[in-house]
Every structure is written in C-alpha cells, then in structure tokens.
C-alpha cells in the first residue's frame, strides 16, 4: 500500500504557481481553494443573516418603511424566507465545513500534498461560486426571487402563474441549485478518492482524526444525495419550461387551466427529501467531527470511544438515507409507510445519543482549557442536545399532527442543523485560523462573541418550540389574520430583539477575523499543543504542505496525557509509539 501511495503522490504533485491569477483566483492548491470556499460561505452567511433580520423586522412591524427597501410586502417576506433557507443550507452549512475546512485540512491531516484531483477541485469551487451568483441574481430579475420556500414544493414552484417570483426568479433558483449539485458532486468524488488513496504511510483509517472521518462520510452522503437533487431539479426545469408534467397534475390557477396533467406533486417531495434528509447530516457531520477533535485537544484527554464515534457516524450516514419520509407524514403519503419511517428515524437518534455521551465522556476527568475553539465546541454540545431532544417528538407521526409545519420544527432544525453547525464553523475558524493565516485571533473578542451568540441563539430559537406547541404555523408573513396567533405576538417580539443582539454580536467575529489577519499575535507552529499532522508543518503550510517530505504516522490522533510521556501530548508522527491499549 505504501509504495502505491508514494507513486500517487508523484502523480499528483504540481509545481507552485507563479502568476497572481493562478495563485489566488484559479488556484489548484487545496489550501487556497479552501480559503475561497470559506470566504464564499462568509459572504453567503452575512447575506442570509441580513435576510433573516428583515424577516424578523417585518413580523413585528409589518408596515415599517425601511431605509432603501421601503415596506416589506407579505409576498416579499416569503421571498426572504425562501432565499434565507436556500442560501444558508447550500452556501453556508454545506460550503464552509466541507468545502472550506475540509478542503484545507483533509489533505494535511492525512499527510497528502494536495487533493487527489486538483483541477476538479478548482472546478468544483468555481461552479459553486457561479451557483451563488445565479442565486443572488434571482433578486434582481423581473418579478424578483421565488417565494416557494427552500423546499420548493410543486405545483407552486412549477407554475409561473402561481405567485410573484415564480417566473424567471424561480428558474434561476432551480438552475443555481442544479449548479451547486454539480459542484458538490465533483467535490465529493475528490474527498472520497483523497481519503482512500492519499494517506501517508502509517495513517491507517483507524488513525485518522475524526474530522477526516466526518469529511469522508459527508462526501459519500453528498455523492449519493446531490445526484438525486440534480435530477429532480432538471425535471422541475422541464416542467417549468418544456411543458412536461413530472410534478404537476391537472390544476387551475385562479380558474385558468395550466396545460399540465398527470404529474405527481409527491414525487418531488420524495426526491427532494431523499436528498434533503442526508443534507442535514452533510451539514452537521463535519461539525461533529470537529467538535470531537476540539473536546479531546482542549480536555487534554483521548476522545472517549474513538471506534464508537466512527461507527456512530457511519450508521448516521447509512440510516440517514432511510428516513426521508418523516418530512412527509402529513403529505398524503401512505400512512403505513409513516410507521416504517418513524421507526428508522427513532433508530437514528441512537448513534446521535452515543456521540453526545462520548463527548460528555471526553471532558469528564479532563483538564479543560477554555480557549475560544473549546468554548464553541462546548456550546455545540449544548445546542446539539437541545436541538436533538425535539427530534423524537417530530419523528412520531402522531405528534406531527399538532407540530408539523409549526415553529416547533423551525426551532428544532435551527438549533441542530443551523446553529450547532455554525458553532462547528466558528470553532473551526478559531482553531485553524493560526495555521491558515499565521496569527492568533483575539481571545477577548472571541469570548464576547461566544457568550452573545450562545445566549442569543437560545433566546431566538427556544421560544420557537413554545410557539409551535401553541400551533403557530411557519411561513406566515403576517400574524394578524388568525385569532389564536394574537396572544403569541409578545414572544415573537422578544425573539426579534434577541435577533438584533445576536446579529450585532456577529460583527465582533467579523472584525476579529480581519483585524487578527493583520494585527493578531504571531502564531507558533503548534499553538494549541495538538497532535495531528497540520501542527507538524510550518505556519502557514508551504505549497506542498510538508516542505518536500511526506510525514510518517506512528500514533492515533488523540494521545493526550499519556502516562510516562515527556509532555501531555504525543504527536502522530512521534516514533516513540504509544503502547497498544
């Protein structure tokens, strides 16, 4: 195996570029591409957050005239939520942890000079960036961006006459998602091949850091899921523009026949959620891997149950493809299938619980250093518990009767898929910033950022569960029509104020990021005293990652506080092998 790997390295090696364009724009270097993905996601997250700010303002002050934007109309609110959801899920939660940090650190952590297919890597980034521009363009075309929600259920999403924004804006939305799928498929192939073929000598699968396992499993999920969404997107484009009827039966809009007949709206839902549920894990798995890493590093303790963590992630990935129907309990799908989907969904809670217990087991009897990445890792665990605990409610079809499509669902997925993943991204940023940019981020600003974000997100998303129990439906642009919503307005107001504070807190992060690039304290090569390969090389790493040699790995990734060792951590490359245990 070892000789094969060295041969592979020789093939994949490419000389450092000299021109500015090849170095920073159309770069083949996975590190540059990783940073490009990171800044794409950073742009997207601030756009998505701004849209959510407008939504929160509109809910409380529907008639408010905003500077430049004027009054937000009810249909504009739906446009905002559609674009917020789409941008956040695709261009932030899928892009930053995998495309950004995965690209940068997977090759280094397994001891490879680059990804397996550098050109493909460059292509996947630029296709993703193009997808983002197409998505944003939807705001500026006639009719504006679509209002059909990020799930895009037809016939609403298939018929230009079904609502404002369902014309060209909706076409751009579908095209953007199709492009994104292409980019994600290319990236997934690259990650899988790199993990399987490019590991350094001694880097067995079971010596990989859990981050690498997470990126690897996420890539497999991406390969299987994005292909399905891509096909569904193409069918939807055909329905919209070529007169086909995959998803649209005989319907009338405002009494006018649409010319479609015989299609099935439920077919889209099956295809969409066959992608959509694994997508949840695509967003959260890298954060799980990263937080496992951080908890071990900063507790100065081996990860509790490494193998259990790997098997738990594998089973989450596997089961993740068998639970899509739990999004469809109220859809008109056969009620018998609901029972099967429900059992599988409850089963997927088991590996998730195993991971939570193992995280608690990791910090238990540890020696915790409260660095900024560690704070976000601990925050991640708290959010994962809170977001996870509402899962077993929604997994039961009986409880979906009162809860489906209410704010209870919105609270659930924001905590677990949104904010928990974002905490993973923040943790990763604070942790790897020194390696990427050669300087430390300010710990003081990071702490303010952490506490504002933790308390703020709980203040926004925990009340959503109360709203949902009271029957408050999601995607309602005004709260004036239903009488039973009137009593819930004070809670909505509270959430809007909490959102103001939380959003303001994010500018501390933004400032810290750019300020530290220029003025941060110079970082040592291994500032956190961690064991994995990225901390053995220079800061920032040279073009070929390890400066002309390939590291050899002797140890597992989590050898902290080994009895008898000279320091409280043993590098993976330290030949004084830790005794088998």
């Amino acid at each position, binding site marked *: 195996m070892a000789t094969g790997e060295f041969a592979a390295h020789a093939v994949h090696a490419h000389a450092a570029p000299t021109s500015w364009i090849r170095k920073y724009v159309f770069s083949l270097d996975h590190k540059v591409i990783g940073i490009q993905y990171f800044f794409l996601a950073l742009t997207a997250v601030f756009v998505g957050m701004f849209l959510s700010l407008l939504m929160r303002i509109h809910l409380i002050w529907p008639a408010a005239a905003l500077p430049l934007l004027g009054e937000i109309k009810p249909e504009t609110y739906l446009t905002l939520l559609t674009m917020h959801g789409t941008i956040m899920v695709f261009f932030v939660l899928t892009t930053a942890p995998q495309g950004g940090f995965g690209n940068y650190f997977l090759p280094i952590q397994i001891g490879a000079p680059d990804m397996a297919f550098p050109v493909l890597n460059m292509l996947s980034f630029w296709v993703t960036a193009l997808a983002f521009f197409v998505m944003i363009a939807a705001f500026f075309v006639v009719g504006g961006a679509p209002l059909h929600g990020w799930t895009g259920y037809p016939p609403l999403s298939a018929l230009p006459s079904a609502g404002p924004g369902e014309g060209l804006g909706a076409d751009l939305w579908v095209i953007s998602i199709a492009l994104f799928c292409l980019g994600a498929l290319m990236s997934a192939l690259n990650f899988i091949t790199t993990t399987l073929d490019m590991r350094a000598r001694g880097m067995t699968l079971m010596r990989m850091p859990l981050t690498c396992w997470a990126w690897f499993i996420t890539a497999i999920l991406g390969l299987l899921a994005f292909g399905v969404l891509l096909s569904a997107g193409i069918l939807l484009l055909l329905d919209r523009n070529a007169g086909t009827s995959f998803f649209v039966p005989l319907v009338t809009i405002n009494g006018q026949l649409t010319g479609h007949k015989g299609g099935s709206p439920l077919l889209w839902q099956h295809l969409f959620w066959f992608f959509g549920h694994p997508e949840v894990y695509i967003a959260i798995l890298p954060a799980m891997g990263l937080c496992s890493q951080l908890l071990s590093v900063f507790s100065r303790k081996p990860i509790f149950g490494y193998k259990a963590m790997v098997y738990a992630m594998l089973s989450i990935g596997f089961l993740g493809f068998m639970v899509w129907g739990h999004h469809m309990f109220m859809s*008109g799908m056969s009620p018998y299938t*609901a029972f099967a989907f429900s059992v599988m969904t409850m089963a997927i*809670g088991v590996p998730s619980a195993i991971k939570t217990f193992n995280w608690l087991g990791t910090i238990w009897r540890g020696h915790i250093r409260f660095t900024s990445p560690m704070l976000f890792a601990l925050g991640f665990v708290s959010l994962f518990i809170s977001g996870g605990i509402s899962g077993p409610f929604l997994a039961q079809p*009986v*409880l979906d009767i*009162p809860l489906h499509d209410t704010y209870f669902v919105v609270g659930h997925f924001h905590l677990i898929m949104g904010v928990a993943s974002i905490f993973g991204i923040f943790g990763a940023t604070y942790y790897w910033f020194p390696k990427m940019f050669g300087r430390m981020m300010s710990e003081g600003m990071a702490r303010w950022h952490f506490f504002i974000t933790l308390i703020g997100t709980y203040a926004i998303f925990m009340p959503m569960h109360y709203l949902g129990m009271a029957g408050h439906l999601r995607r309602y642009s005004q709260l004036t029509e239903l009488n039973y919503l009137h009593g819930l307005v004070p809670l909505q107001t509270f959430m809007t104020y909490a959102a103001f504070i939380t959003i303001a807190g994010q500018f501390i992060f933004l400032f810290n990021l750019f300020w530290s690039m220029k003025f941060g304290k110079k970082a040592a090569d291994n500032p956190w005293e961690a064991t994995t390969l990225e901390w053995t090389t220079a800061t920032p790493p040279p073009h070929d990652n390890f400066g002309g040699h390939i590291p050899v790995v002797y140890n597992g990734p989590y050898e902290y506080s080994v009895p008898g060792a000279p320091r409280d951590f043993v590098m993976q490359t330290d030949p004084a092998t830790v005794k088998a245990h």
Partner: protein
Amino acid sequence: MGLVLLVVIWLITFISAYFFIAKTWWLPVGASAAAAGIDHHFATTYVLMGIVFVAAQLSLGLFAWQYRERSATTPQAHYSHGNNTLEITWTVLTLILFVGLNFMSSSIWASERFRPAVSDAVQVEVTGMQFQWYFRYPGPDGKFGATKPQLQDPSGGGEAALGLDPADPTSKDDVVAGTMYVPVNREIDVILRAEDVIHSFFVPAMRFKQDAVPGLAIHMHFTPITTGDYEIACSQLCGLGHYKMHGILRVISQEDFDKWLTAREAEKQ
C-alpha cells in the same frame, strides 16, 4: 471561565425548562375524540425527553466547571480511550427509550390513519385554492356531483369556484359553504382536494392536519366532541396569501346541523 459557562448553561436549561413545566404556552384545548390520546402521548414524550434534556445539560455545565484546568501543577487528565460497557449500556437504554416511545404512539396513529371512516360518517369535501377553503356537502342523495376544471371560476362564489357541473343530476342538491358546519359527536369523513397548489388543512383544536394535494382526493376522519367555533388554518406554504387562508369550523348539535343543511337546500331551489 468554567464557572461562567456552568452558570450560563444551567440558567439556559432552567429558564427553558420552566416555560415547558409551567405550560405558559401549550397545545390548544382539544375538542376532538383523538385529542386526549395525542396529548397524553405528547406529555409522555415530553416528560421523558425533558429529563434527558435537563440531565445532559446539567452534566455538561458541571463537567466544564469541575474538570477545568486549575493550574499547570495539578495532576494530568485521566488517560482513557473509553469504556465499552458504558457504550453498550447507553446504546441499549437509548434504543429502548426511542423505539419504545415509537411503539407506544403507533396505536394512536393506526386508529387515526389506518382505519377508514365509519359508514355513517358525515361527508364533507374540503377544497383548498389560493387562498380560500370551500366545504361541500353531498345533499340528500348522499352523492357528490361531478366537477370540471374547465368550469372553475373563483370569482363566481362557492359552486362556480369548485367548477360544479350543472349537467350532472347528482350535483343539483350539493351544498357549498365558506364555513365548515359539522354535527357534534359524529365522525366526519373529510375528503381533501386542492385545485391549484398544495394546501394543508389544519384545525389545531381538533388535532387534525392533512395536506390537500392537487390530483389526489384524500380521506381523513375526526370526531368533534365539543360544540363551538374553531379556527382552520392553511399549514402548507401556498403562495403570497398563505397567511390569510383561514376559515371557521362550526361544531353544532345534530339538530342545528340538520336545520342548517335544510335551509341551505331550500336556498338553492
């Protein structure tokens, strides 16, 4: 820092749990035969999950504080790669809890959704269109008349909006209303349709929710047990007027229901 984190996590836990326990916001009062069972199962799930939530968050806060790095001189962290007995224990316990909950709720789901409506149930066809609900009753002949999409005219009121075909004799006695009248303590056999996009018929007090899908006629039943007016909402995003697509379910005595239906029949003639 460990102490600050402990205080913050514990406070978040206590405040969140307080509002759940105090039931400051809760499910609306149930008014259907199924509500008690659903609510009971909701409460069971919620107590069990609540215990897990509080226990997990409190230990997270506690461990963060208890195992903080006090100084460089304190003993090192405990060197351990885990414990298989513990892994197996919590795997089995979680499995029992989650799958157990699931089996407990399956009988309620079966009675709500597997069993068709009883034969003497009151039939009401519910049709959703942007952004209005229409309710159709078959009349004395017990049969719904044919509808044709070509005849649909939303501006012409209920019957025209549904595209009721006057050429079909069984359509003559069909009654279309904008408010849903039903008799109390009778099973209601709802036939859900949608003309344009997907809508969802949600009556919170009845613990009733089902999507209305174009191209499908979905049968679903419920039994109201308390008279009164209940709000109907659309719970599936259906376009710009989604938020104002609502209606009233009026549960009245059988006697009043018969009177109302007769009066509507008379109006038609």
